[in-house]
């Protein structure tokens, strides 16, 4: 069994537990949580783009059309290819961020 870490989604305040061999997007979806918009789940569409604001992590290959080298160096990654190595905090910056924030506002 791998280690489990806590991932805080700053935009919604949600916290999800994520195993070190699971991607952050899947962990969020599997728990029925909302917070990061869900697109292709394959690193190709860029919808689940987040900025990691704290913690250690690694990623798998993401489309360069979605994440530039400079962004990647700055902690901007796709949640579907993001694997935690410690507790993490992330901010949503993807294509559907407006829809997600509108949804959160609408539900309060």
């Amino acid at each position, binding site marked *: 069994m791998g280690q489990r870490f806590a991932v805080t989604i700053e935009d919604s305040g949600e916290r999800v537990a994520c195993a070190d061999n699971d991607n952050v997007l899947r962990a969020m979806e599997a728990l029925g949580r909302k917070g990061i*918009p*869900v*697109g*292709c*789940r*394959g*690193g*190709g*569409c860029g*919808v689940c783009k987040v900025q990691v604001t704290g913690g250690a992590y690694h990623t798998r*290959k*993401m*489309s*360069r*059309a*979605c994440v530039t080298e400079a962004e990647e160096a700055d902690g901007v990654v796709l949640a579907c290819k993001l694997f935690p190595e410690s507790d993490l905090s992330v901010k949503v910056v993807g*294509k*559907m961020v407006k*829809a997600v924030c509108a949804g959160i506002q609408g539900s309060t």
Partner: protein
Amino acid sequence: MAMTGVLRPGHISMRVLDLEEGINFYKNVLGLVETGRDGQGRVYFKAWDEREHNSVLIREADTAGVDFFAFKVADKATLDKLDGDLQAFGVKTERIPAGEMLETGERVRFEVPSGHLIELYAEKTDVGNGQSYVNPDPWVPDAERGIAPTRMDHCLLYGPDIEKVQEIFEKVLGFYLVEHVVMEDGKTDLAIWLSCSTKAHDIAFVRHPEPGKLHHISFKLDSWEKVLRAADIMSMNRISIDIGPTRHGITRGSTIYAFDPSGNRFETFCGGYDTYPDYKAVKWTWDEVGAGIFYHDRKLNERFLSVVS
């Protein structure tokens, strides 16, 4: 009806982020038959019931998406004629020599205003569907391996200026409009479904600001039961499902949308109706577009509208 000119979709070349993951998906999960690999790193596949050497190519790249989509034409004379017709219409064409793709003859390539590369070809090696042309059985073991669609059926592409694309497909290539969705202004088309055959669609376009995008590549199944079986296989293999199983209002197909491991959307569907060039096009209005796309939910999901590769 005598089929002449452009006959059918022939092949798509797509980009994947990880080639091995891509090969595993297209071969073992979708259940296509691998037919070759070339010096450019492209891997070739066909659906089991297709007779030509290839219909799906993948290559590893830094981005997902579509490189080009091709149609088979009746013969070499048709290829030459359509090349000339395209040029006369003001569309720049390029000849790609025979053999550049494995077992595939000369191709005529051109870019349409939506930013997609379209190709025509007349010759590709007939490798058969695993059956004899004399006294064949109805299916072969490959027909039950993975999802196992019978053919690569059509694609939906996203890009700008779709009315100009429609003009090229209708006026030069002999396609006709089968269905369309009209935007809020009641005039401008949001989406068009075009046929070169009696299928409800051979290619479709949605108006989108970014050029050259792939919404999905579609694979045909024989029955609703096989669509449900496809959904089971997707879940067994942790394939990312977008929506379905459900039914379209537009074209009436029963469908699942899902993503390959690189985020290229694909569809496995059955049904749809037969159509003919003299049929009047079916129109969907903006207020009913939800039911047009997903007939049961009667509403769109944001992901289906905005996620492309």
